[in-house]
């Protein structure tokens, strides 16, 4: 695999990370909570699709038809039960409860589906690729995922900017108490945001399961990658998520080009480098502020 090939594959992989991170970013933007169970919920989507494929003998694409509405419902109910109470209980509590969910989901999946490694077939597109030059091949499936990611982000952008629900979401994000005075049910708005977030997570989980093998312990890894994409791209920014995803994807594939074992490590290193640069800038800004004040 050439360097150019590695970079192109990284960009395409970034589409997947953007899709994975969209829900995480949306929930943080609307409710200021980071859902630590996000990766685990993506994995639940993958396992539910796996069940449908196994029992109805349909392709994974068809299996999305029942799984995605199911994920919307799961997200809605999750917000109305656990998350809503967590939000009211204080700033730290959503972290504690979603971490508890991560542990519960991971181990339940292990119980019901065994720790075995599984895969979902991705159809004829899964193996097809376009050989642009002798050293550059473009897998169509990755292009499809990037396209879906851009479609989901664009759809969400339109939803937030141009629909009634979008206006309610933005207003509730800005000030939940005031929108209540204006007759908006903030809790219902939150629940819709979580429903959308869980559905996008499930969609990403299914794509993940189609492009590589998965097992019950991979949920937390997906959470970490999604989070890295969100932070690199600038927390709370929807299109920044796409940029962050691409940076992360390129870091990983270029790292893997050096040595296959550096795939995850390279992504983590870029993430920590971004944090360090921000820490230095913030600390520097701090000192400048102190100097001008003193």
């Amino acid at each position, binding site marked *: 695999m050439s360097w150019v090939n590695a970079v192109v594959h990284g960009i395409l992989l970034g589409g997947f990370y953007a899709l994975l991170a969209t829900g995480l970013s949306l929930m*943080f933007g609307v409710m*200021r*909570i*980071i859902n*630590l169970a996000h990766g685990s919920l993506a994995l639940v989507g993958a396992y539910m699709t796996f069940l449908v494929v196994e029992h109805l003998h349909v392709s994974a694409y068809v299996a999305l038809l029942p799984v995605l509405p199911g994920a919307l419902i799961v997200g809605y109910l999750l917000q109305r039960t*656990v998350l809503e*109470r*967590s939000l009211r*209980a*204080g*700033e*730290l*509590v*959503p*972290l*504690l*409860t979603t*971490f*508890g*969910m*991560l*542990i*519960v989901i*991971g*181990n*339940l999946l*292990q*119980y019901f589906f065994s720790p075995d490694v599984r895969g979902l077939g991705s159809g004829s597109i899964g193996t097809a690729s376009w050989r642009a030059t002798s050293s550059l091949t473009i897998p169509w499936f990755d292009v499809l995922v990037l396209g879906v990611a851009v479609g989901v982000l664009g759809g969400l952008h339109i939803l937030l900017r141009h629909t009634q629900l979008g206006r309610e979401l933005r207003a509730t994000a800005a000030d939940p108490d005031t929108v209540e005075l204006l007759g908006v049910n903030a809790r219902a708005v939150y629940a819709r945001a979580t429903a959308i977030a869980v559905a996008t997570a499930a969609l990403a989980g299914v794509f993940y399961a189609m492009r590589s093998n998965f097992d019950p*312990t991979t949920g*937390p890894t997906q*959470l*970490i990658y999604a*989070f*890295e994409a969100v*932070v690199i791209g600038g*927390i709370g920014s929807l299109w920044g998520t796409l940029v962050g995803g691409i940076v992360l994807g390129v870091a990983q594939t270029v790292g893997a080009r050096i040595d296959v*074992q550096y795939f*995850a*490590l390279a992504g*983590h*290193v870029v*993430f*920590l480098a971004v*944090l*360090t640069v*921000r*820490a230095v800038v*913030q*600390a520097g800004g701090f000192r400048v502020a102190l100097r001008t004040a003193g």
Partner: protein
Amino acid sequence: MSEHALPSASAPRVERWTPVSLGFTVALAGVLALLGFGPLLFGQGTIDNLTELYFLVILAIMWNALAGYGGLVSVGQQAFIGIGAYAVVFLSVEHSLSPYLAMALATLFGAAISIPLGAVVLWLRGGAFAIGMWVVAEVFAILVSLDATLGGGTGTSAVLAFNLRYTPEQRLHDTYWFAFAAAAISLAVVFALLRSRLGASLQAIRDDEDAAASVGVRVFFGKGVLFVLAGAGCTAAGAVIVAWQLSILPLGPDSIFGVNWTAKMIFMVLVGGLGTFEGPIVGAIVLYLLETYLSTRMGVWYLVMLGGIAIGVALLLPRGIWGTLQERLNTRLLPVGYRLRVGR
């Protein structure tokens, strides 16, 4: 102009030491002194079990120090557990140091490494700090698994270092004493910290970081102290764990760098009582009992139960066992705070 003219009898009094807390502190000191002679008093099974309890206590009070007093929820403290364990292997197996000297040095190393680390991650808040720490733990796990001299991905063992110098019984006893000393020192340091001026400012940071900063609390410094303390404590716990179980793995949720450690820390602190001094000790005892009597029988359901209970307690009993009891009985067994008494 009647009772109000006699202010001295009914004015509120601020007190720290009460007869109850004095009595309990003395009793606790007695129990601790007794436990210090543990290997001379107990059988091997009990010594082994108490060692486990001690490292659970260390982990619980350190996680509580971060979250309960600094408002820092970390899901990556297993980074330090793994660093502690692997530092012991590195120093004692690779460089033939005495394992117990290696354990002490490992703790110092954990404290040292947490200073530059804290300078970066402490700029993060809330959930960003939580997952940021997790990434740190993953990075250390991957680095260790890439190092063939440390056993790579298949893990390593400290059994050689111990067996060369000690009989199994000596290892059991000395590990007990090391774990006991580490737990006692951890408790003493957190106790002193909470009673200090810094302790009060830390709780102000937890309650509202911006408000605390606005009244002159040095937020970053306070968080840094807690982070280094918790780093050293969790590293010491990791050093004890490797001496206790001998073999360690770097990768996977159940490994020495595994996220299941965080699940256990959160469980202990929430069940015992987040932000109370005594709570984590209570939580550690509860988890210790569950580990001893249920963990092997329940399989994966054990962690499902721990996670489920943690969620339930966070939502329904936010003060945990100890915090709730303390509120009901209106008493404090250890004098970490001040109490207001109105009237006689």
